[in-house]
């Protein structure tokens, strides 16, 4: 287990200065989740326009550095993308975190891939996996509510 892998610079930065925190105006979908074991909470807000584009996204939440960073990274990566693409990205990232699968989507920039990969550090910390995954599941469930 490598602590440095878990608390990479990117994670610490997103954890301390989370992007898109708050309730975005004009959100039309939202979902929340709670981990009773540790008390982590997240509430995610989406603005999906009629062309199924995610024009805005934000989150509110309480939690550890990993969970805040994961939420912040999610909003940063998905904002402005098409619905289908955001789903695919979310699923691939969950696959990466849980099953060490590779990211295959090629519409992401190298910077974005680096950012995403920083979340893979939890793989060796089983009790922390949920910290990283919860917000992605919450995002997907917000989309499901839509349908």
């Amino acid at each position, binding site marked *: 287990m490598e602590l440095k892998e878990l608390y990479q610079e990117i994670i610490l930065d997103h954890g301390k200065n989370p992007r898109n925190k708050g309730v975005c105006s004009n959100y039309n979908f939202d979902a929340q989740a*709670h981990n*009773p*074991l*540790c008390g982590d909470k997240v509430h995610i807000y989406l603005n999906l326009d009629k062309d199924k584009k995610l024009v805005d996204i934000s989150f509110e939440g309480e939690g550890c550095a990993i969970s805040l960073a994961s939420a912040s990274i999610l909003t940063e990566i998905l904002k402005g993308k098409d619905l289908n693409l955001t789903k695919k990205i979310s699923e691939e990232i969950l696959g990466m975190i849980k099953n060490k699968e590779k990211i295959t989507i090629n519409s992401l920039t190298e910077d974005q891939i680096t950012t995403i990969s920083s979340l893979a550090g939890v793989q060796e*910390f*089983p*009790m*922390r996996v949920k910290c990283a995954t919860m917000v992605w599941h919450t995002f997907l469930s917000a989309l499901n509510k839509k349908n």
Partner: protein
Amino acid sequence: MEVENIKKEFPIFKQKINGKPLVYLDSANSSQKPKSVIDRISSFYETEFSNVGRSVHSLAVKATNRFENTRDRVQKYLNAKHREEIIFTKGATEAINLVASSFGKKFINSGDEILITELEHHSNYVPWHFIRQEKGAKIKFAEVNLNGEVEIDEIKKNISNKTKIIAITHISNVTGAITPIKKIVDIAQEKNIPVLIDGTQGAPHLTLDMQDLGCDFYAISCHKMYGPNGLGILYAKKKWLDLLPPYQGGGGMINEVYKDSISYADTPTKFEAGTMQTAEVVAFSESINFIEKIGMKNILSHENKILEYGLEQLKKKNSINIIGEPKERGSVLCFTIKGIHPHDIATILDDEGVAVRAGHHCCQILHEKLGLPATTRASIGIYNTKEDIDILCKAIDHCKKVFQI
């Protein structure tokens, strides 16, 4: 692993009882434990112990994984559809109490009927009696026939449109009768009645497949399956676990807790309040390993061989009356000897190193029906041999000598 040499796996057989080798014929009461299971408890406490599911440190992570892995093992072993269908309890008794309480509170009302049988162990009657009292419900008893079995028609006859649940044993711990679960489940499903199986005697002696059996609830005591004491399993279909209210309240089973309201975790956690018997759960994986290494089929055919031989030998003695003559018998053999009380038999057999059980075996209803206050029971486990039966027979002769019969 060879069945013939299996006694070697069980440290208890190094003991002498009253100077004689131990002939253990009390497995229906509790089975002995193989060394691998005993050692797993020690090694867990010595090198891996921590509380489960609560802390994030390395020991806790390891312990939690071991604990949850056992749930996966049990799921596979029972061929349950979901891992969330496996709840760890203190024993079969607690498993049945859980269902009677949670199901009873939600689904049983005044005038409703609970269908059980005259074969039931007190553990599959008293919890329903509580609900009878609390809810003003009725308990119907399907009767046993002269062979000590409950027939399908007897079940059919007792079902009414007020029947809310059927609770029945898989194998009787007195007559040894094996209940035709699948047929009962078929009948019940037609009428949308859930079926609980008391699998306490079934689980150690039958191949189990929950999806094939189709029952809604199945209760198991691990200590009769070469596993640790203080541990049981409730299998329940997920739809029920999602619907039922929690049974005990405490740490771990909650979602959010406020002063005026509480929401609960999802199953299985919802039903596992407080600190669990971690070491026992972890060690139960070794019991499954043990059973799978021999193979349930081999266990069954060995046990049946001993059982048949036992029946044959006991029937030869004309002072002996064997209780029940079911078409299908699972590994128990109850008998009486004319003129000697079962307790006296048990004491004299013990003097010869033979451990059996005497009494009503927690089946007073059945013993009342049989007109017997008590019987003597020899029950078979994987470690028993034909020689054990021979020693039993000689010891029975000794009883008669003591009592000058």
